[in-house]
């Protein structure tokens, strides 16, 4: 294991593979700077670039509604899930009860249940409660979907905090409130941030509940993009531009916290 010498053969191969894997995204970026006509008829002529697809997307008032819906769903579900998960993870870590492992597994099992198994009742209940095609309805469902991952991830960060610090605080007679806000949260801040980021990423990309529970009013970007699948639409450049705008913020988040994501996605089993 020579850790300092750059291996040029492997470098070349890696770049080749990396470009192949990301080619669809690079191509999407290139096509977004074309007109819809040229995206289909002259895809390789890069002198014909234009911003008209982006202006077309922005001119469509509806785009901002979808964007807003995505932001509300992602941020709202993250805030809600974090608010529920923080006390839960605190309690699981620092006031352990004999059946902690059972509770943790129960929480995990709700995530493992396939969403399709409850689609019909959720749809009917939402219909009754007038939650279909509302931002609130999506926020609730998406938060419920991500909550188990968030609790587990927070738990795995809290566990890394030396228990002595918390114990010392308790010996000093610090209140629970103060224990959480003055000791736990600052110590776990990086973990909290990456947990929230993972939650935003997962909520933004959620494409089951958004497609099934939202329509013209509450559809976020994931459902909006799906409307480009209609056969009469040959708006490839516009599809590319709208897609680029929809994925770039999340792509950046993903790059920023890749290592932490592994912890969240594997329930702390791989760090």
């Amino acid at each position, binding site marked *: 294991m020579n850790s300092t010498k750059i291996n040029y053969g492997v470098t070349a191969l890696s770049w080749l593979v990396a470009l192949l894997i990301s080619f669809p995204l690079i*191509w999407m970026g290139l096509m977004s700077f074309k007109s819809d006509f040229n995206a289909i008829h002259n895809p390789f002529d890069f002198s014909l670039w234009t911003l008209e697809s982006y202006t077309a997307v922005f001119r469509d008032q509806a785009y901002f509604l979808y964007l807003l819906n995505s932001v509300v769903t992602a941020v709202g579900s993250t805030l809600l899930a974090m608010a529920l998960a923080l006390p839960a993870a605190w309690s699981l870590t620092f006031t352990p009860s004999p059946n902690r*492992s059972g509770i943790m597994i129960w929480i995990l099992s709700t995530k493992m249940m*396939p969403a399709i198994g409850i689609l019909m009742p959720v749809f009917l209940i939402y219909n009754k409660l007038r939650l279909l095609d509302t931002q609130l309805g999506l926020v609730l469902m998406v938060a419920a979907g991500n909550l188990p991952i968030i609790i587990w991830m927070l738990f795995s960060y809290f566990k890394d905090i030396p228990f002595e610090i918390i114990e010392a605080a308790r010996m000093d007679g610090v209140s629970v409130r103060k224990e959480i806000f003055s000791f736990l949260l600052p110590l776990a801040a990086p973990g909290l941030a990456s947990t929230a980021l993972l939650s935003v990423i997962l909520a933004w990309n959620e494409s089951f509940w958004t497609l099934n529970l939202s329509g013209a009013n509450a559809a976020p970007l994931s459902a909006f993009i799906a409307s480009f699948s209609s056969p009469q639409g040959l708006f490839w450049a516009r599809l590319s531009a709208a897609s680029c705008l929809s994925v770039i913020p999340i792509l950046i988040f993903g790059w920023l916290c890749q290592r932490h994501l592994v912890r969240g996605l594997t329930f702390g089993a791989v760090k």
Partner: protein
Amino acid sequence: MLAPAMAFLGIFSFLPLAFTLIFSVLRYRLLIPHIPSFCNLQNFFRLFTDSQFLESVGNTAEIVFVVILLSLVGGLALAFMLNHEIAGKRLVRMLVISPFFIIPTVGALIWKNLLLDPAGGVFSIILKQFGLSPVDTFAVMPMAMIILIVVWQWLPFATLILLTSLQSLDTDQLEAAGLDGAKGFDCLLHITLPHLMRPITIVILMELLYLMAIFAEILVTTAGGPGSATTNLTYYIYSKALLEFNVGTAAAAGLLAVVLANGITFVMTKHIKRSVGL
């Protein structure tokens, strides 16, 4: 302090599941005006004689098996490759894992239109340059195309997890083994691979759960067709539920999906418990 979170999860998962359980033994269709009535296990019998349902189970198994195999083998190869000293390492890693962060509907539509479309897709244009005639791949081999898209999304996941795990491997151990005269292959067999067994298991189990539930990619590309060639279990239930509004049948099939996933979950929790140290 646990109660709010657990109540929330209960309401949004076990309460609907209880309804699924009840619906599954009812004759209950929304498009025909009637009062839902108890029908014993008829919904289940109907499922097992429905060739479309059986085909969807087969299709689900095919997607799950092939995608796990390809993403695992590819992910291992990529992880070992990216674990070397590479010029521009960070950028290469970012490019490789990017597809995992893309909204599924976006990824699927980019593949279907920009890349694979028989008229204007980039691959058909390249084929034409070589004097070959482009094929409508989604008509000729729809399942292979779905699998291609899903592998593209999940290969980065496997790579990211396995690479992270490789990097957490204690290099001292490898160096000590090297000093003791162990050859590269021995190190791989006795140190690296055992170290990777747990992440490999986790990747398989996580992918099992997610791949069973593939939905958006099918909805925006083939809508389960042609015929029911790309209808998986999830898409089948969706079409029973929200296209035919056959509540009873959808619930019965949904229940089977839950039972199936439970089997996997059981194995999974055992592994997770052990690795997290609960």
